[in-house]
């Protein structure tokens, strides 16, 4: 497994895609590969792109790849789509929009299913970013699933978060709610040729006028019109990329990258502890049948979940 990590460091595409696959499948010992590459991580600019289903995230990502490639920088993309809560299957369709980059060796695109994760990402995204980072990609774009208001895990992984809004999704009360609207480093009003775009712009602006920006960065709003006009669309996205670079420079100048990095490592140690401590215990309980017994006890109201959890903790946790 360490071998796979070594090959990923050389930019070997098959090693990279297999490693991401093993991370997703939670293949035993994959952690050995991550241990090997971890010291080399932290070089790439990670850009998150999030917004409602159908807001245009994939199409924007596709055009953004053009803007980034025009500066001779390489790009890694991880695009997340939802897994079915019923069958566990998934239809991953983000790649359709990015097909024109399939022959470009400077671009690596990987589709991931959420596999039960609730925050708008896949659990594999954190380590997946590391893999794309060490394979040498300059910019990594993480496209979330189509999100609602609360799926904002992307802030734990990205340096720059783009929130894509489209006209016609609600009044200004939506704009001042907590969650999604708070996490943007840059707002994009997409499909801005549609009715209501001007109104959405004003609402977003007045929402920000009410806010405070302790870091000193006030999220700009970029209007992007229909991709049916390729020239103006490309120009707007070039402008968007300028804003993205401005934000990255801002983070660097103010030593704020460290803060973002801290969020990421906190998430990572949290996840690593869970998989090292909680999961083995859970697996043991499931294998021994104790888990089913506990479920039955709860159904019969013989006990409650907290008492059971205390019993398990007393058995497995050495204080």
């Amino acid at each position, binding site marked *: 497994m360490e071998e796979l990590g070594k090959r990923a460091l050389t930019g070997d595409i098959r090693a990279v895609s297999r490693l991401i*696959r093993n991370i997703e*499948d939670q293949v035993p010992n994959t952690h050995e590969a991550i241990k090997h590459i971890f010291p080399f991580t932290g070089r790439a600019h990670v850009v998150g792109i999030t917004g409602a289903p159908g807001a245009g995230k994939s199409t924007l990502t596709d055009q953004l790849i053009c803007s980034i490639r025009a500066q001779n920088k390489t790009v890694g993309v991880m695009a997340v789509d939802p897994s079915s809560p019923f069958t566990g299957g998934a239809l991953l369709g983000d*790649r359709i929009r990015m097909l024109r980059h399939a022959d470009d060796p400077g671009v690596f695109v990987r589709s991931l299913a959420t596999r039960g994760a609730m925050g708008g990402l896949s659990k594999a995204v954190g380590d997946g970013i590391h893999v794309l980072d060490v394979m040498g990609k300059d910019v990594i774009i993480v496209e979330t699933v189509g999100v609602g208001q609360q799926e904002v895990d992307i802030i734990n992984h990205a340096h720059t978060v783009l929130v894509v809004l489209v006209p016609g999704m609600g009044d200004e009360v939506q704009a001042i709610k907590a969650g999604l609207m708070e996490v943007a480093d840059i707002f994009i009003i997409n499909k801005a040729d549609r009715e209501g775009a001007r109104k959405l712009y004003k609402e977003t602006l007045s929402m920000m006028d009410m806010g405070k920006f302790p870091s000193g960065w006030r999220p700009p709003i970029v209007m992007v019109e229909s991709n049916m006009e390729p020239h103006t669309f490309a120009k707007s996205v070039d402008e968007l990329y300028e804003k993205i670079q401005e934000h990255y420079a801002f983070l660097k100048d103010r030593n704020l990258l460290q803060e973002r990095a801290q969020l990421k490592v906190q998430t990572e140690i949290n996840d690593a502890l869970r998989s090292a401590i909680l999961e083995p215990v859970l697996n043991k309980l499931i294998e021994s049948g104790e888990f089913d017994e506990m479920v039955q006890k709860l159904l019969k109201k013989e006990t409650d979940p907290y008492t059971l959890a205390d019993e398990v903790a007393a058995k497995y946790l050495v204080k």
Partner: protein
Amino acid sequence: MAKKIRILLAKPGLDGHDRGAKVLARCFRDAGFEVIYTGCHNTPEQIVNAAIQEDVDMVGLSCLSGAHTYLYPEVVKQLRDRGVTDIPVVGGGIIPDRDMQPLYDAGLKALFTPGATLDSIVDWINTNIAAKE
């Protein structure tokens, strides 16, 4: 560990009849597979690059324009040229009987023609495409 079967579903060549591919994509989703659907008008190069980057267990091709005799073997050939021998290629569409054997000879692992039921395709995948180690 939670292995999932990952399938790339693509339409090579100049053919916009994507109903069949979409029905299959939905069917595979319901069968618990992860399907990467890349839509219409793919070149063999694009399909091969996508298959490698996505590390899929199988490539499924759909083409109803009659160009399957060129496009399907070309995908197989380009995968081999890139040193990829562990991703089987499967095809579907309106394939005349006389084209079947040449396509198998070219390395296609299975061919599904009109009349093939969704269940039979899912069964074939469950039997023949074990998720990779």
